[in-house]
């Protein structure tokens, strides 16, 4: 059943209006099915000159460059870049840990804002957008489409996504790497509480499939600071055993473990060429997205 459009509180129209001014670029050539703003691995009919190629029989004679023939007495065909659209696949972690939030907003809510905004921006510039909600398995999928009406169904799925169960993100990423057609933009929105070594293999799998992988690593300020004033009983949101601890006793070791994890995650994403964004969920999502889009735009210009 479709949700009431008026309840889509994860969308901020003003923010979307501001973000629409910045296009979403892919960092590597995409394979779309229509013309778009993204580079394609194939040659096309755009105004962007690509290269000269020797004429071979069968080539369209209209593409011969007679001026080049006049200069060199050889036949050359003038080729132009092809512009295409992209397929953006949003991977949303809906495991139980995404329900955590100490600042009035949970990770899943923050993830909805990021995903919803990205979907809107992509569709607005003619790109196809799909969605995969993953936890222990792939909970819901929405295949990529570029029509504005497609957004409605995608937003419904986003709104209905509920954090539940454990995380098997690595396996699900391997699965998605195989199922998503090549050369897509895969945006992972998760707290990434998995083994970085396993995640590295998943990222490399996606990279092997020529996907442009971006990751939003969502962390709560309380998880980062670990500041408690009294003994706590920590209940695992993904169904694991509870832990009773005096936070002041273990804070230092917690920080040490967290730091080691973040360092390793940084190393993994660098090695896997993942567009990695670590996000504290008390941060304004608009700024996060703006940073994401601007960085891609800069990378696109350099490319």
């Amino acid at each position, binding site marked *: 059943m479709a949700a009431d459009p008026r309840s889509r509180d994860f969308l901020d129209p003003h923010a979307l209006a501001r973000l629409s001014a910045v296009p979403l670029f892919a960092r590597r050539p995409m394979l779309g099915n229509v013309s778009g703003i993204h580079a394609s691995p194939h040659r096309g009919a755009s105004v962007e000159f690509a290269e000269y190629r020797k004429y071979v029989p069968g080539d369209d004679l209209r593409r011969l460059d007679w001026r080049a023939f006049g200069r060199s007495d050889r036949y050359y065909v003038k080729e132009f870049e092809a512009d295409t659209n992209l397929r953006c696949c949003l991977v949303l972690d809906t495991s139980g840990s995404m329900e955590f939030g100490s600042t009035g907003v949970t990770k899943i809510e923050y993830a909805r804002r990021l995903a919803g905004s990205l979907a809107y921006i992509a569709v607005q510039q003619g790109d196809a957008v799909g969605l995969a909600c993953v936890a222990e398995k792939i909970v819901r999928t929405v295949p990529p489409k570029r029509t504005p009406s497609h957004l409605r169904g995608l937003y419904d799925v986003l709104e209905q996504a509920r954090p539940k169960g454990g995380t098997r993100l690595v396996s699900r990423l391997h699965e998605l790497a195989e199922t998503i057609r090549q050369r897509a933009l895969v945006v992972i929105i998760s707290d990434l509480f998995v083994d970085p070594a396993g995640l590295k293999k998943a990222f490399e799998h996606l990279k092997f499939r020529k996907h442009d992988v971006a990751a939003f690593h969502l962390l709560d300020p309380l998880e980062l600071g670990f500041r408690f004033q009294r003994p*706590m009983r920590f209940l695992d949101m993904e169904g694991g055993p509870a832990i009773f601890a005096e936070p002041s006793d273990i804070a230092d070791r*917690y920080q040490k473990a967290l730091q080691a994890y973040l360092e390793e995650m940084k190393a993994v994403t660098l090695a896997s060429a993942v567009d990695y964004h670590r996000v*504290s969920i008390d941060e304004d999502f608009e700024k996060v997205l703006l940073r994401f889009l601007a960085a891609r735009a800069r990378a696109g210009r350099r490319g």
Partner: protein
Amino acid sequence: MSFLQPWMLFALPLIALPVIIHLINQRRYRTIKWAAMMFLLTANRMSRGYARIRQWLILAARTLAIAGLLFAVSRPLASGWMRLAGGSVDTTIVIMDRSPSMRETGANGGASKLEMGRDQIVDSLKLLGSNRWLLIDGRDGDPVEVESPDALASLVSAEGVGASSDLPAMLQTAYEYVRDQRPSRTDVWICSDVRRHDWAPGSGRWQAVRDAFLALPQPVRFHLLAFPDVATANRSVRITDVRRAETSSGAELRLALRVEQAGGSDGKSTVPVQIEVDGARSEIPVEISGTTGEVKNHAIPLDGRTQGWGKVSIPADANAADNEFYFVYQKPAARKTLVVAEDPEAVRPLAIAAAVSPEPSTESAVETIGPDQIAGVAWEEISLVLWQAELPQGEAADRMRSFLSRSGKAIFFPPASPAGGEFAGLRWGNWRATELERPVTGWTRDQDLLAGTRGGSALPVGDLEIARHCELVGEQASLATLAGGAPLLCKPAVFADDAAADAMAAASNAYFCATTASPTDSSLARGGVVLYVMVQRALTAGAAGLETARRFDAGAAPAASTAEWQLLAGSEDAVPSEYPIRAGVYRHGAKLYAVNRGELEDRTATVGDAQVAGLFNRLAFDRVDGSAGGGSALLSEVWRLFLAAMVAALLIEAALCLPRKMVPAAGSAASFFPGTPVREAAA
């Protein structure tokens, strides 16, 4: 363990407060749903043991801090070796050993043992407080009550006395006080150098006094401040004999003296001994070989005096109390014996025993009379009366009592037919035949007439053959006992509580021999040795009573005669009541008395620690060893120590509670935020 504010210790359960707060805090936990469990699990696995130890250390530090505070405000007291003493006391009895050995100082001089002990005890008592303070220092029988510890200090002079201490007797005095006054709690402080002769650890009185204290319902604690160290370099001088002898040129004084060194010396050393006789001084060197140096028959010419005094002294050393020795001399008095007998022939052996002097130079005279001739006797010349007749009655008894009271000696032998007259509480009963050939079963071997010889040999009293003996009726103190319990030689038993001075004198100077020297009654005359020694000892003692110049060991002078003594030489600080126990020369009318420390005071043997502990077995007893010249306080408040412990515990707790050093900021988790994108490695 004692404290000046012991009631504060009731708050000791508060030390459990940190544990209770910890437990309450543990129960005040909050439950939170947590996402980042992987870090918590990792943190829990890392150093779990250390965290637990740290937790316990923090709790222990907090507990110690509270305990330290409570102990500090309870004002604990520490004595030597950190043992704790003191507490709330009703009565404090101080037993001061003021014997000459207590005037010994340390190797480097300074305060004597007596001064150190006095000051340390006074300081301690000031801290402890008490409702009542009493001093027992052996001067007289009763404890002296003082107003404050300071008054105690002024009462115990640093000079000490010349008399030895009798610790069992002092403790008995303390016991009698506690028994009579029934204080709620009593502390007995003993300050002594635990010399063996002062403590007499072999005495049966210890058992009696210990049992008496154990039987008391109220608690009594004993604190011994002991000074067992002996100054090995200390020397003492002593006159062993002084005689005035007539010479062709007039008269001379013949001295025999002995110098002893406590620790001995490897080789020979010479000590200058200064001799002062009637104000004229001379000095002689005395060579010490080993521990002793002796001079015998050192002659000093006299200018015709028949009586005088003098002293010998050696240079100052560790103990000033044994560096001087006083003596008096006089022309020897004749040793005159009066034999009173119904039948003069029957007492001939007695007369012979009295007439033969052990020293040729000493004259001995014997006069034999009948009982009816008593009235004409010149009693002032008599040293010994040998009485073998009906016991004196009426005027004769009065004369005899007067004679005995001026230290004359009398030995009574049974008459042939006792008529029942009584003297000194005793009267002769019937003659009894003795069944055994040698019936003497026991006798007093260490003192009085039948004591052993100087060489330690016992008199052959057991070899005496007694054919018959006369019964004695009345309270008596037996010196020799026959089989069946009848006395052979005894003294009248007079109880000190109700006895008049004359009766006391009679009890100490009169002897009753239950048989005679007649061959039909005993072998006293045939064997001769026992009779001769017995008579000569009584004669010597009786003659000493007649001498106008006498030498006493401190504390041994007859109490009745000391009230009118005048000081000729000795400590100017001494009060008249202390003359009999302070070394010096005193005049009483025409008589001269020299008072010196007892011979045992020159012996340095001490009672061992274990033996001292054994003497106080089962009593609340603690001991602190002090040292002469040492300056440490016996008892001091140690609340600062506990306060310091509390501060230390708080510092430790603070250090343990400090958050552990975090990862440097550059690499911290927070430094990753706000996040900047990680650029593609390839780019």
